[in-house]
């Protein structure tokens, strides 16, 4: 049967039954008077459902998944199904009773079914509320079993129950006292009073759950809870359970007024008793508890995308309990949003606006600005230099997220004469350098020197190189008006790339578009060209050709941070720390790595590329796995595919590839801005960058040179000093 049909006989029978039912319905409806209307309704329903409702469910389900993901990870309970199941049944009920719920077509319904469609909306709402309520209750039970319920201040999960129980007991005692006075006043006397007394446990539990309080505050709390309980129970739930209509009118108030006085008195009395009970319960102040706990120490080295993602995720995972003590060590005290760096070089954005302070981004993490200088895996310590201080940090878990740095040593002269584009200072230096050269050219009489001053070479055809040359060109052209002796034709921009096509990450079509676009805007693009050396006055190519220039921006080649070379672990050919799919360094318990300094295998047998997008995902996965390991669970392998890549090509143009779909031109540029603006860390910075963009439309770019020293001279001095240190 299975071979013939492809599934079990039960499946086939169920199918047949469903088809028979559908056939019956079709035959039955075909005989109806308004069969055409039924058909129209049916087709309409299909169109409405598939084109409007289905996408809506999908989006809602996605949102719900995002909302419940963290709780699912922390508890191992499938939280989303506790929303899906009641929502599904509720929607099914709505679908079945839709005309009655909406009160439409009542004439036909009453005529055909003989049932007056009264009160369907109320009943549907009630049924939905019940479904969600039961589902919530089940979820709470499952979460409590998994030990994942958030606790009240100063208490762990079982303590919450203790406080609730103590509150409920207090409520019962107060209820007994008030109930004795209430009993003679109600018609049924003792029979009606016993359930009332028992129910007093509920407001009592609420008073208990709200925690300890001073005497006046407890009395006030009692009054408030009493009123709330009266409105909830006497006026709403009790009539609902009795099947009476809910009116909340003065008749209901009159009927239940004795209970208002009783609830108020009960609240006051329970509050007064609570003042005596609460101090005897085991609870300590939050600060004391957090300090007393011996938390596992996690040290994260590196404040880039991966390191900050680890710290932020650990903060989120520990929202309800202090679970670990995290220290983030970073050379800068900010997270740099590198995709916008070329725009800083181009003067479109203010440098500080694309950097988020680490202390703001990770408010519950210890942030230490300093440089890690040595890792001792045996003693489990990291030596950190912070200014003049030398510190030793002990760790239980160490995360290497040190990132990459530009590799400038391979080609002679780069260190001395080229400008890298990897940090905020680099971007600002590049901008000032270009403006300084234009200023010098404005005065220069010698045509050859003037041409060299106005020739700007960028080496590297990746994102940084392409975006950098486009932005620098925009800047130069937009400030031309300030230099009266210069003509737009005097400016020369050269992009040198060793590969066969620019932006190799984006595929040949977009690379071709980019090439055409850049050439169309007057940028000379030299493909398949290597650089032999960089001189102060020229860029020397491997072909022997020399390009006379005073500006070389170097974006070709990065290498993992040098500190990881000192750690005795396996490294890839590029020098990155090799980790397994769960981001752990094999053979070294408690050592983890993510981001550009790590070589992370993907499930295709390759490794994840060193991009911000992957560093973020790696950081989050690492934190999840670290939390799992600390909780005694198994870490999960990272599964992530590149979502897409975007590059801005200067003034209102760009290229993008999202999930295999390619975009170019103004649309891609708008997508670039929208997506990166959303990804920029921190609301405040987003607003600032958006304002920068807005102002950039309205006003010319700034030509203020704020740095006193000549950037090239400064860079050369730094390089010499670094070299000298290495020699020593």
């Amino acid at each position, binding site marked *: 049967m299975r071979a013939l049909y492809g599934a079990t006989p039960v499946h086939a029978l169920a199918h047949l039954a469903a088809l028979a039912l559908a056939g019956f319905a079709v035959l039955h409806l075909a005989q109806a008077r308004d069969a055409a209307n039924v058909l129209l309704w049916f087709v309409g329903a299909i169109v409405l459902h598939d084109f409007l409702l289905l996408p809506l469910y999908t989006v809602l389900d996605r949102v719900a998944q995002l909302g419940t993901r963290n709780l699912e990870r922390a508890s191992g309970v499938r939280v989303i199904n506790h929303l899906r199941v009641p929502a599904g049944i509720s929607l099914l009920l709505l679908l079945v009773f839709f005309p009655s719920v909406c009160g439409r077509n009542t004439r036909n319904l009453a005529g055909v079914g003989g049932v007056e469609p009264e009160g369907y909306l109320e009943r549907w709402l009630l049924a939905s509320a019940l479904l969600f309520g039961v589902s919530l209750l089940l979820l709470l039970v499952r979460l409590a079993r998994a030990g994942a319920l958030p606790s009240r201040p100063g208490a762990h999960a079982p303590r919450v129950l203790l406080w609730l129980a103590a509150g409920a007991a207090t409520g019962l005692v107060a209820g007994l006292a008030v109930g004795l006075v209430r009993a003679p006043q109600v018609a049924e006397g003792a029979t009606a009073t016993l359930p009332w007394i028992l129910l007093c446990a509920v407001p009592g539990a609420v008073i208990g759950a709200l*925690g300890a309080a001073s005497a006046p505050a407890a*009395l006030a709390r009692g009054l408030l809870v009493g009123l709330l309980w009266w409105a909830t129970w006497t006026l709403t739930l009790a009539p609902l359970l009795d099947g009476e209509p809910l*009116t*909340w009118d003065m008749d209901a108030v009159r009927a239940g007024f004795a209970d208002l006085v009783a609830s108020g008195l009960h609240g006051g009395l329970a509050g007064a008793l609570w003042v005596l009970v609460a101090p005897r319960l085991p609870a300590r102040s939050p*600060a004391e508890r*957090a300090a007393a706990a011996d938390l596992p120490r996690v040290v994260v080295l590196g404040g880039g995308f991966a390191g900050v993602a680890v710290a932020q995720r650990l903060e989120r995972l520990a929202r*309800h309990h202090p679970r670990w003590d995290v220290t983030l060590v970073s050379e800068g005290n900010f997270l740099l949003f590198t995709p916008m760096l070329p725009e800083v070089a181009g003067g479109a954005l203010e440098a500080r606006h694309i950097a988020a302070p680490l202390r703001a981004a990770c408010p519950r993490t210890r942030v230490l600005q300093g440089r890690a200088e040595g890792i001792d895996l045996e003693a489990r310590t990291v030596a950190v230099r912070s200014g003049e201080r030398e510190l030793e940090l002990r760790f239980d878990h160490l995360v290497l997220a040190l990132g990459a740095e530009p590799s400038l040593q391979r080609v002679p002269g780069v260190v001395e004469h080229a400008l890298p584009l990897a940090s905020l200072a680099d971007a600002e230096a590049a901008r000032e350098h270009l403006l300084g050269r234009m200023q010098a050219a404005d005065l220069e009489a010698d045509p050859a020197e003037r041409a060299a001053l106005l020739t700007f070479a960028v080496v590297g055809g990746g994102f940084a190189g392409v975006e950098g040359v486009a932005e620098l060109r925009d800047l130069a052209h937009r400030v031309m008006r300030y230099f009266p002796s210069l003509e737009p034709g005097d400016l020369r921009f050269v992009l040198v790339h060793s590969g066969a096509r620019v932006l190799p990450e984006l595929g040949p079509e977009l690379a071709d578009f980019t090439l055409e676009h850049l050439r169309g805007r007057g940028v000379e693009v030299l493909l398949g060209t290597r650089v032999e050396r960089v001189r102060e006055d020229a860029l020397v190519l491997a072909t022997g050709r020399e390009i006379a220039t005073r500006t070389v921006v170097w974006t070709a080649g990065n290498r993992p941070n040098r500190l990881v070379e000192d750690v005795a672990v396996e490294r890839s050919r590029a020098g990155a720390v090799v980790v397994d799919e769960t981001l752990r360094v094999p053979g070294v318990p408690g050592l983890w790595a993510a981001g550009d300094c790590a070589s992370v295998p993907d499930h295709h047998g390759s490794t994840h590329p060193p991009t911000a997008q992957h560093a973020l995902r790696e950081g989050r996965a690492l934190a999840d796995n670290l939390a799992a390991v600390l909780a005694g669970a198994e870490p999960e392998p990272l599964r992530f595919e590149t979502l897409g890549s975007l590059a801005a090509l200067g003034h209102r143009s760009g290229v993008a590839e999202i999930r295999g779909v390619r975009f170019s031109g103004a649309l891609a540029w708008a997508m670039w801005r929208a997506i990166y603006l959303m990804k920029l860390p921190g609301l405040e910075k987003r*607003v600032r960058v958006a304002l920068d963009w807005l102002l950039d439309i309205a006003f010319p770019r700034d030509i203020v040179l704020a740095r006193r020293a000549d950037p090239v001279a400064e860079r050369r001095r730094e390089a010499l000093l670094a070299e000298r240190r290495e020699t020593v």
Partner: protein
Amino acid sequence: VRPDAAWARRGAAAGLAGGVVFGAAMLALGGALPAIAGIVRSDATVVGLLIHAVVATAIGVLFGLLTAGRRTGPGELVFWGMAYGTLWWLLGGLTLLPWLRGEPVDWSLDAVQAAFPSLLGHVAYGATAGAVLGALGAAVVAARAGRWSLVRGALAGALAGLAFTWALADGGLLGAAGLDGPPVVRWALALLLGALAGMAYSALYPRPRGTLGPGLVRGLSFGFLLWLALPLTLLPVLAGDGLPWELAEARERAAALTPSLLGGVLLVALYRTLGALAGAGVQDDPAELADEGVGTRALQGLGRGTVGGLVGGLLFTYVLVEVDGLDRIAGIAGGSSPTLGLAVHLLIAVVLGMTYGLLFRHEGGEAEAALGWGLSYGVLWWLLGNLTLLPLLLGEPLEWTADGLAGGFPSLIGHLAYGAGLALVLAALERRDNPWWSALTPARARRAELRRMRTADAAPGLWAVVTVLVVCVLCLAAPPG
């Protein structure tokens, strides 16, 4: 601070002062003091007065001991007193007094309405005791009103008084407030009494802290006090009409309750606005500003308020569906279909949620504070929205009379559910910023604990006064049987 004899002495004096006010009211009303004398099987007024004075002093001592050393200012003590007085009304007036007199205890609406003057008396007792306790130096957070804050209060109060009188005149309800004399006298009284009320407020709360939201709830409670003091006491007594505290008379003056409450809210809003305007140019010290800028605060508050407002709005929807209230709301948009009504209702719920997010930012971080502020905000919007703006928008007469209050009661339940839902969601969202254990340093933990304690010592009194207000509204609104 441990309660000691000094606190007890202050409490005794405060209790005696409150007892004098309550006793004077009972003398004016007649009949109540012989009932108290019934405890010792007598019916002499003097005996009743004596017992009353002793009891008033004794519970005043307890009040002094309960509030000993709490971080409260003089204004908070007044509100604590009002709540404390009401608790004694429930316990003493409605329960112990009949029991001691050997009568059956009766908590039915009729009995409670008959004891309505006693409720007002207890509230007046508590307010007086609180004020005297503050004046005797029991307020730990002692801040003296400067000259300018008194001027500011007088200006805000005068403006609020004019608005109050204009609103009553517009609704043809001047008689309810005892302001139905000649126009010149009426406006002069409005200005004078408003200014005095504003000065009283500024003396009680010279330097408000925190966001505006709790201030508005304070205004609501202050408005309740004003209603009791002016249209229900001072104005009729000045006009020689006697003390209209009996339910039938109080119901006639119930129309002045809503404008009094909203007047109190307006007074505080104006007082704070004038303060902000005066302070904008001169005393803007960054050391006193909040951690985040106004931009971050506003955006976060608006975003979270939207979510909370939607949740609260959905809870409210249940009440509206049950009492068929959606059609009426649709009238705001010129329609009458429930679907349109639902859309308008949810839109309003979201907008009000946003205002709550801005006005109560970081005030309701704990569940109790969230409940307190949320329910109070619900009551405020019941008064302003359901009883005032909705009739205005629909071109109907204002619903401030006792019957109007009764008709609006289902909406009050909806507003309470809305406020509670909104505030609890917002508290859950705000906890992301400040989990209870987040303080990295002991100093920060101490500061957070101090702030928490300050709220715990001052705010519950306000929430309790709002509860008292709701009970009072119920007594007034229900038609006597």
